[in-house]
């Protein structure tokens, strides 16, 4: 309750007319950002617990196509919660990393019953790489439509099947965060 109350309190502050319209000094606006971020971080822990594990995390920078899990993991799960009362076909767009040396990105998405969900991999719009402060290495996005009933969640498993087929070295490279450019270059050469 304390975690949810933090967000509730911050949302109350966000309803001040200056916060709604942006008519505030920049340091005040920055403080609004800080508060809402803290509130979301707390509330997300509650959401993670309801999904059965605190290892579920949130990608706050998904709006600029940046997410560490989807970019660095060869296999991961996505839980999609629909807070509305109407069913929705929500387009899930996830930034992914593909080998710039020419390896085709190939992903498989399954629902919780193990059925394959139609998905496609596209290039990200090039302009996304112009966003200052974006540190993603994703060049592509994986797209699928998540059909979610009202007030429900569904879980999808995503697997990079190209990674399965090219052996342990590349699998490891995609699965774990590459620490520096030299290491990445070395792995690309070996690959």
């Amino acid at each position: 309750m304390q975690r949810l109350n933090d967000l509730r309190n911050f949302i109350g502050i966000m309803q001040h007319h200056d916060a709604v319209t942006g008519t505030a000094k920049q340091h005040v606006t920055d403080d609004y950002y800080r508060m809402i971020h803290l509130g979301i971080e707390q509330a997300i822990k509650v959401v993670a617990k309801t999904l059965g594990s605190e290892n579920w995390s949130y990608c706050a920078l998904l709006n600029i196509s940046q997410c560490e899990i989807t970019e660095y993991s060869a296999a991961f799960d996505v839980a999609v919660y629909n807070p509305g009362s109407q069913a929705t076909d929500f387009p899930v767009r996830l930034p992914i990393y593909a080998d710039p040396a020419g390896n085709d990105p190939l992903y498989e998405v399954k629902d919780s019953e193990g059925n394959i969900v139609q998905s496609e991999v596209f290039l990200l719009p090039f302009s996304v790489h112009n966003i200052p402060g974006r540190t993603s290495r994703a060049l592509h996005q994986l797209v699928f439509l998540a059909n979610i009933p009202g007030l429900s969640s569904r879980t999808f498993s995503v697997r990079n099947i190209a990674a399965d087929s090219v052996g342990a070295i590349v699998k490891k490279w995609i699965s774990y965060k590459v620490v520096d450019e030299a290491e990445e270059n070395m792995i690309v050469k070996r690959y």
Partner: protein
Amino acid sequence: DDVLGSKLEMRDSVQSKKGKEFPVPPHESRIFTNGLINFTLDGGSGLLSSIEVEGIKLNVKQELMYYIGHPGNNSEFEFRASGAYIFRPLQQSPSPITMSPVSLVYVEGDLVQEVHQVFDSWATQVLRIYKGRKDLEIEWQVGPIPVEDGFGREIVSKITTDIASQGEFITGTNGREEGILRKRDFRNDYSLEENYEPASQNYYPVTSSVSIEDESARLSVLVDRAQGVSSLADGELELMVHRRLLDDDAFGVDEPLDETAFGVGLVARGRHRLFLTAPNDLGTKAVRLAEKTEFYQPLLMFSNETKL
């Protein structure tokens, strides 16, 4: 080029397994369809030129444009600047970002079809249709807005159609009413001094959707955040997506609306969804339902444990 060249090279070397991507010279008109909605790109300009849904066809032009914000010296009236509180452009109609055809990349798949449009390095957008959906999504990205010439700029997405809207448009009300009717150069409760500031006096807030209609068609635009909107001429809509201004408007903030991050101006990225329906039919109900799904955006959580 120095910053982006290597990324461009990297991008060019990547081929997607699914979907086709190829740059297209802006000299061929092209129709995109998912079986429910068609949209056409004009060959000359590379801009949207028409939408067709369920037998209703509408000529539509859409582009990102800009106003120059009024400069000022913080005085109360004559030299009051465009700023956080007021939209006060120098000119009364927006200017094009580019006079050249926009550059295009087509991305076609079974699930999604996209057109990436580049107006300038700081103003781009993606036109997109999804399988099974009747709306056209426009994902815009604007910023950092250039101000090196000493002028602040206010960026709008301008939609021009042949709908005979007779000076009226309707802004949504977050579901409380059908919508609020707005009339150009008119107020219900007082006499408006005509042509005082013709553009800004006709701007209104939009928090969910805005529509124009005539006897044959209704065009609705769903927004993903609160914005300013206007219809300065019949059949037109303008949605203000981003602003960067260099002078304070003297209403109390005492700072210009010049947000910076990482040493440069802010980048904003958002989405408009265009629905073309017959007026006053079930299609408008579909738009209201879409408003709800737009408001109640699903929450995505991730785990790399792969424990279903």
